[in-house]
């Protein structure tokens, strides 16, 4: 039972991360996030610098909302958008984990390259091989 729960949790985390990564795969959406990382803003404020219709920008905003990267709350008649930093932390977490994994693997790869080199040179020439 516990294992099934853990698997469900992992699956939903994967789905969430997938949605966040997909949301971040577009340059316009990344620019929107960058804007919101400075301060929260209204939809019209976000749309202003973009050379596209308000409707097109709204579509990108909806994708970002659906993925959980940004959140919307109302202030009187205005819709204010802000970043949900937790979702981006998950992305950073994934990147850090994978970077750690590859750094370790590449260390192991370099060690093996060293071993293979030594084997090839044989004990006689080892002095030249160990730079």
């Amino acid at each position, binding site marked *: 039972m516990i294992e099934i729960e853990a698997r469900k949790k*992992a*699956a939903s*985390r*994967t*789905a969430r*991360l*997938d*949605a966040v*990564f*997909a949301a*971040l*795969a*577009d*340059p316009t959406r*990344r620019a929107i*996030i*960058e804007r919101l990382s400075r301060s929260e803003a209204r939809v019209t404020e976000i749309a202003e610098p973009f050379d596209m219709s308000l409707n097109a920008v709204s579509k990108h905003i909806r*994708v970002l909302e659906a993925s959980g990267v940004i959140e919307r709350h109302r202030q009187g008649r205005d819709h204010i958008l802000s970043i949900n930093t937790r979702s*981006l932390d998950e*992305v*950073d977490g*994934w*990147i850090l*984990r*994978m*970077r750690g*994994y*590859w*750094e*370790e*693997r*590449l260390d*192991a*790869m*370099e*060690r*093996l*390259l060293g071993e*293979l*080199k030594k084997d090839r040179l044989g004990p006689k020439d080892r002095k030249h091989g160990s*730079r």
Partner: protein
Amino acid sequence: MVHGETTGPVVQVRRRVRASAEEIFELWTKPDLMARWMSPFPGAVDCKASCDFRPGGTFSLVMSSGQSSREVSGTYVQIDRPHKLVFTWTGPLTNHANTLVTLELNPRGDETDLVLTHERLPTPAILEGHTRGWGHILDHLADAASKDL
């Protein structure tokens, strides 16, 4: 980390390695050599690697240590010996999400600049809205596979 120009967030590791591109390429593509460094388990590890080394071919790596065991697998997308290797990669570490690994090797005299890029690929559900990125990869895969035939 989220402000790239054209791509989404990726993992990128660069290093200069004291070996030729050919020597490094061998380590990534020969099962008996892959088994000697790709396992993340410390100490005694039983690692079995197999691969069908051609674009569209698959590889798998089963690593076990004591009671735990894990498997990673993937499909070769592009093979440009000894400069570039692109393959999909999935396993417990990626939460079984589809990811893409690109290995680039640029010779620098006796040494080689290695650039490893690891990115997540959209799932089929997400694809419906965003077919461009993945579609490009699939096209590439199909091209590569048909060239091979």
